[in-house]
């Protein structure tokens, strides 16, 4: 957009608050001097784009003027006026810069530089060799003239004249001033008559560069305002704006001239300048601006009221906002209200005047120009200056100091709309509307971004809160050791065999029930580790454990999460295995964004792991029961696989049968055909009855039926096969296995056929009368591994059964001393056998066999569990 102006911050200096005494002094080559009302003056180099030097004066600086030819600056401090030879300083500065110090050099201005010992000089002006100071003394303003020496070396500044002007008696000025703290500055400028400049062009070039407080006014206006005599004497005129609003002038070189009042703004004058420069370089308009926005434009009115002679026309108007500072260029007056930088195009009024002819309308249009300053959208500017080297192409560059202490270059757009004023205003309006809209859009965008950030943060916090709550909940579980059923978040498993692509596979289905009041959301993961309970360390040394993880999406309270994990295909699994599951809360997944996760690589591993439970899946869980109905059903359902299945069934049954035969034969060791291994567990039927009782305590009949040993065996078998131990349950594939007999044929996970028999036997000495009613669980299989595994599983079940049984068992009868004795005897024999096996030097095969037989003995003759 062409109407925008670019602000470039050049430097920042430590400075805060608003001061009236901020001044920018240009025109020292590439150096810009800035005083901020403190003791410091900053020398900013445009070439190096940094503050090169800081001049430290003994007191707070009120004003600053420069003499470019001699490279001198005069500084008005609270304690007096100091003269600083800038060239000398900068030379020294350059030589010191060879030391490559990047920080600005600090130069203390000593008392030796004091040239005028006047207190509280508020303004300075240098006209040729004359230094003027303006200060307030008691009840009058005092303008004092000093002669500066020709040689820069000498410091004598002779006072040769002074002019008094009584302070205006207006009470409000003084009172308001003292209340507001810092005394406001005055303005001193020098006005030259235009034709003087033309006549002495050699002088002009030198003077025009120091034009910051020197203006060349159109000769006619000059004469009208300051008199013919001043014009004839070629005298520059000093114009001073005072805080009481008066604008006074003094022809400098006219003998007998007095300080006279030109105009009064009735509010503190904060800027005086001249603008609307013609081709000849003469300003046509004198501008004075008061602090509260009153602006006086002083122009020549050629069509004067009386007799057609020219008169000076004073146009007063108010511009919006307080005027903090201002500066002029060839046609415009720029001023800052603090909130905005405004441009007042003064040539506009004269432009409009050309078309219209009436004198009244002239002032009307000028006043209209005052009404419509255009905004440049730069805020908080407290000092302005137009750098001497303005670029070509009509670009206007201003130097500003912001309230935050930044030196800024403000580039104004070159294009000025040359249409009529009405059209201009409409385009201006549309432009400003567009500006506003885009600004609103910008703000909205930023606001929404901020909103989402806040929202995500809130989300994050909520999740964290949940996570912490959940982890506390789980930690409380572990400490209080609740039974698993009552845990707020619990999981249990089911095993199930499935047949896929002619291959049976066992899968473990995990159910996670969330009964906590929290939703398990994103970021939570269920991790299940499956590892064999007893693993022989493989040569590679790797653990054969398997990890499964299931991320949650939204598991609400009361819901159950179900996941099935393939544990093993038939034949290649080592049971029993441990399943430990835990809940994992991961921070990185919480953050969600990939880039965040990527950027914080460390986060990926950072997660909270909360153990839920650890279970064991044993052989009993993994059994595949063979039931005639099931086989039949399968055969009918799947004809293709029916043949193979039936063959297998046949084979396995044959094996069993013959196995059973050989077992009965009692000769086992030397048989070449596959051996039949067996193991058995004896449990006192009394205990079994007691433990199984609570299960069916609901009906009294059941207790009766349990009396029946046949029923007892059946229910034990049932219990063994389908009992839910530690949350693991054998899944019922298809329909429930109806166990008609107390003998169950099954296939183990390794495919070995096995038989599980539960029957009541009487254990004890044949001669003894008190025979103990005992239930024997016998496991038979041709596979040693299967026997072992199942034996282990059955033992575990019975163990848990007995644990759940109450201490009632303590009331059991006397210990079977006989049984014990026999057991001891067996143990002795076995001991001797084992030591014999190790003692004799036989082949390893023989030893193995020997040991195996001992082991079998151990298995086959268990102790009775009472």
């Amino acid at each position, binding site marked *: 957009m062409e109407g925008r102006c670019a602000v470039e911050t050049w430097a920042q200096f430590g400075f805060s608050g608003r001061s009236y005494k901020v001044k920018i002094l240009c025109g020292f080559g590439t150096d810009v001097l800035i005083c901020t009302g403190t003791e410091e003056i900053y020398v900013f180099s445009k070439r190096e784009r940094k503050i090169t030097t800081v001049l430290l004066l003994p007191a707070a600086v009120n004003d600053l003027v420069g003499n470019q030819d001699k490279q001198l600056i005069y500084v008005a401090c609270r304690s007096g006026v100091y003269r600083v030879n800038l060239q000398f300083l900068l030379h020294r500065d350059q030589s010191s810069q060879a030391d490559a110090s990047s920080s600005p050099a600090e130069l203390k201005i000593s008392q030796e530089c004091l040239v005028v010992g006047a207190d509280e000089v508020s303004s300075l002006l240098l006209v*040729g060799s*004359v230094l003027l100071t303006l200060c307030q003394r008691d009840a009058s303003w005092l303008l004092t003239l000093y002669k500066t020496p020709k040689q820069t070396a000498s410091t004598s500044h002779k006072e040769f004249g002074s*002019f008094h002007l009584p302070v205006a008696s207006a009470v409000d000025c003084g009172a308001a001033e003292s209340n507001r703290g810092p005394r406001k500055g005055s303005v001193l400028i020098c006005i030259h008559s235009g034709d003087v400049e033309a006549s002495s062009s050699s002088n002009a070039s030198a003077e025009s560069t120091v034009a910051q407080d020197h203006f060349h006014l159109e000769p006619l206006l000059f004469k009208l305002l300051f008199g*013919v*005599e001043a014009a*004839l004497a070629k005298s520059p005129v000093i114009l001073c704006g005072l805080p009481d609003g008066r604008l006074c002038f003094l022809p400098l*070189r006219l*003998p007998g001239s007095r300080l006279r009042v030109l105009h009064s703004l009735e509010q503190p004058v904060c800027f005086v300048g001249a603008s609307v420069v013609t081709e000849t370089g003469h300003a046509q308009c004198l501008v004075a601006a008061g602090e509260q926005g009153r602006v006086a434009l002083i122009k020549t009115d050629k069509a004067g009221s009386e007799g057609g*002679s020219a008169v000076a026309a004073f146009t007063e108007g108010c511009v919006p906002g307080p005027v903090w500072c201002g500066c002029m260029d060839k046609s415009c007056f720029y001023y800052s209200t603090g909130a905005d930088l405004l441009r007042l195009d003064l040539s506009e009024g004269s432009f409009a005047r050309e078309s219209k002819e009436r004198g009244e309308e002239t002032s009307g249009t000028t006043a209209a120009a005052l009404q419509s300053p255009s905004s440049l959208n730069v805020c908080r500017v407290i000092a302005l200056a137009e750098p001497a080297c303005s670029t070509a192409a009509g670009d206007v560059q201003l130097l500003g100091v912001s309230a935050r202490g930044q030196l800024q270059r403000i580039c104004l757009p070159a294009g000025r709309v040359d249409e009529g004023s009405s059209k201009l205003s409409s385009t201006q309006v549309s432009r400003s509307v567009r500006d506003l809209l885009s600004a609103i859009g910008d703000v909205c965008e930023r606001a929404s971004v901020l909103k989402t950030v806040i929202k995500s943060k809130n989300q994050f916090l909520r999740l964290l809160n949940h996570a912490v709550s959940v982890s506390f909940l789980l930690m409380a579980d572990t400490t209080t050791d609740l039974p698993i059923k009552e845990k707020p978040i619990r999981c249990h498993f089911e095993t199930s065999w499935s047949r896929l692509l002619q291959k049976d596979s066992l899968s473990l289905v995990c159910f996670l029930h969330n009964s906590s009041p929290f939703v398990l959301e994103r970021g939570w993961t269920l991790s299940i580790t499956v590892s064999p309970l007893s693993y022989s360390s493989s040569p590679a040394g790797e653990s054969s454990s398997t990890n499964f993880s299931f991320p949650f999406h939204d598991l609400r309270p009361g819901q159950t999460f179900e996941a099935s994990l393939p544990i093993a295909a038939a034949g290649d699994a080592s049971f029993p295995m441990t399943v430990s599951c835990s809940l994992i809360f991961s921070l990185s997944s919480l953050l969600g964004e990939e880039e965040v996760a990527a950027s914080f690589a460390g986060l990926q591993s950072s997660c909270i792991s909360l153990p839920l439970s650890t279970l064991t899946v044993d052989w009993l869980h993994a059994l595949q029961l063979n039931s005639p109905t099931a086989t039949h059903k399968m055969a009918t359902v799947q004809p293709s696989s029916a043949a193979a299945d039936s063959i297998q069934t046949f084979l396995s049954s044959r094996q069993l049968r013959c196995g059973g035969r050989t077992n009965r034969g009692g000769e086992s060791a030397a048989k070449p055909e596959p051996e039949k291994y067996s193991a058995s567990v004896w449990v006192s039927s009394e205990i079994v009855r007691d433990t199984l009782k609570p299960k069916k305590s609901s009906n009294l009949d059941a207790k009766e039926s349990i009396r029946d040993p046949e029923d007892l065996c059946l229910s034990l078998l049932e219990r063994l096969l389908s009992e839910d131990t530690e949350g693991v349950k054998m899944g019922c594939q298809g329909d429930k296995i109806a166990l008609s007999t107390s003998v169950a044929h099954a296939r183990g996970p390794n495919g070995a056929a096995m038989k599980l028999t539960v029957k009541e036997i009487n254990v004890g000495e044949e001669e003894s009368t008190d025979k103990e009613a005992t239930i024997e669980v016998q496991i038979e299989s041709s596979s040693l591994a299967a026997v072992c595994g199942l034996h282990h599983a059955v033992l575990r079940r019975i163990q848990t059964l007995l644990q759940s049984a109450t201490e009632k068992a303590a009331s059991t009868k006397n210990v079977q001393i006989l049984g014990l004795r026999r057991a001891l005897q067996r143990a002795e024999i076995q001991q001797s056998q084992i030591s014999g096996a190790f003692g004799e030097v036989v082949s390893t095969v023989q030893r193995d066999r020997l040991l195996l037989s001992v082991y079998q003995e151990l298995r086959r003759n268990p102790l009775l569990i009472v």
Partner: protein
Amino acid sequence: MYQPPSLLEKWSQENNELVNKCKQEAAGGAVSRDHRQSSLRWCSSEFHKLLRKIQGIPPHVDHSQLELAVVYNTCVCFTAQSQFSEAELLLKEATERVLQVTGNNADTSDPLVLWRAGLKSAGNTALHPHVLYLLCLQWALWLAKCQLENIGELQMSSLCEIVCDGVGDCSPSEAKGRLSKSPLLVMEPKRLTELLQICTSIAQGAEKLNEGRSSEALSDLQAASALPATRALVAYTHLLSGSCLAHMNRPQMALQCYKRALETDSRCVCALYRSMLIYRQLGNTQAEIQALRLLHSTLMLPPATEPVLGGIQPLSPSLLLSSQSLSRLLSVPSALSVLYSLALKCVLSGRVTEGVEHYLDLLAALHSEDQHAVRVDAEVSVLPRMPELYLEAGTALLFTWRPADCMAFCNEVISTTLELVPEKVVLEEPEEGIGGDARGLSVEGEDKVAMLLWAAAAYLVQGHCHAHLKDWKQAVTHYTRCINLLVKVHLKNRDFQPQIPAADVNVKHGKDLCTLQRMKGLSLAWRGISFTQMDQLREALRDLQLSLQAFPDYTGAGLWCGEVLWRLGRKHEAAACWEKTWSLTTQTSVEKLPLYLQDPQSGPLLDSVELRFRIQELVPPV
């Protein structure tokens, strides 16, 4: 009440140290005025502190002497800084304390009564000299505040003798002994009384002169000139004596006095100025010019630091000689206005070349960078306004046959003023009291009428230039322009007769009107003369007759009118016209008119003798 002597010693030691420090500062030379002022300020505050310590206890005989010495020192410092009221208050308190010590009571606030009582009570005690010293200070204060009648009433001159004698009386050894004991003083009382005596004489002389009692003043001043004092002060007495004599119409004796003043103090510019005025009064133009030249060169000298006047004494004569009548007598115009007077005098007395040089010097000085708006005393300033200065300089150039330069000057004035000249201007009869002063204060700085008259005068002088070059056509053009401007002025007052502006009416009815009429006469006459040269006799006759109407006193117009009539063959009319013109004996005093409104001495001239001859030739036929 017992006071440990150590305290007294301490105080007197402190006083002595301060006095020594003061004297060192003063002896160190005039470093700068600021520096001296600040050291003085420091001293006075230190003395005042000490005094307050001493006065913190009730007055007592033992340390009254010290106290009075400190009061003296403090008051000298205060007076040197023009803090008269503070000093006076201290003196009053001190007198009251003296009265308390001596057991008298003063219930009066009249200082005169108080002092008399104080002196009486001090009597012949050791305090007496100190009370006298304080009285001297009171004298200085009265003098500084121009309350001369008080001084007269207490007969201070007798006091002076006592003070001087009091010191002189003591034998050297005795004096030494007393000095070592008595506390030191910042300014020696003897010096002070001497200074006071001559200053009082000068001030009283000026006062009497002002009141017209010249002879009385003269004798006093002549007596005072024998008093021991600095050269500058003695020169003042001579100067004032001269002024008295001038008042008594004894210019030669006055000149003698001025000469003596200059001999005493070569920097006494006022004496030069006064003698110049006497020469002017005597009509001794050459001497006047000489005096002006001297005066100017003296004024252009760099102002000396005033070691003679200031001395090393804290009290300077300028502080004591502040009366208005005296400063009026001593005032001297600025160098620029002296230069202007010199230039004008030269031109008027026929030393035109010299005058032109001075004019050019003056303008150069006005345009130089060094010229600055130093305030000038309006009473003495005789400098005309800038455009008038230009016009005068231009006219002077024309007199020295430099028409081109003259035209440049006039062009400058025209280019400056013409834009501001209104279409129509009303010239009102100026009321009494409000003269040009009120006009000068107007915001726009310039009066419209003045602007118009300046522009017209510039055209007039340009016309003269062309006439001088015999470029009659151009001359007619410029005279016409002048006339065109002049006719824009409308006279408001009806019953006023503009036809008879005599020299004495001048002052009464305003310079503007006179200037206007004279300019009308001149421009019309000279256009007529130009037409004559171009043989356009009818136009010439019309203009010359109009000119005579506007300004009957102008002889040139009358003569030329006759000439034109003669040429037109109306010889009798011509003769009558000539006769009439010759009969006008009232010559307006040339010197009161601005230079540029005088009859140009160039151009075609008519020889009166030849004209008379023609008349005589004409008569016989009649």
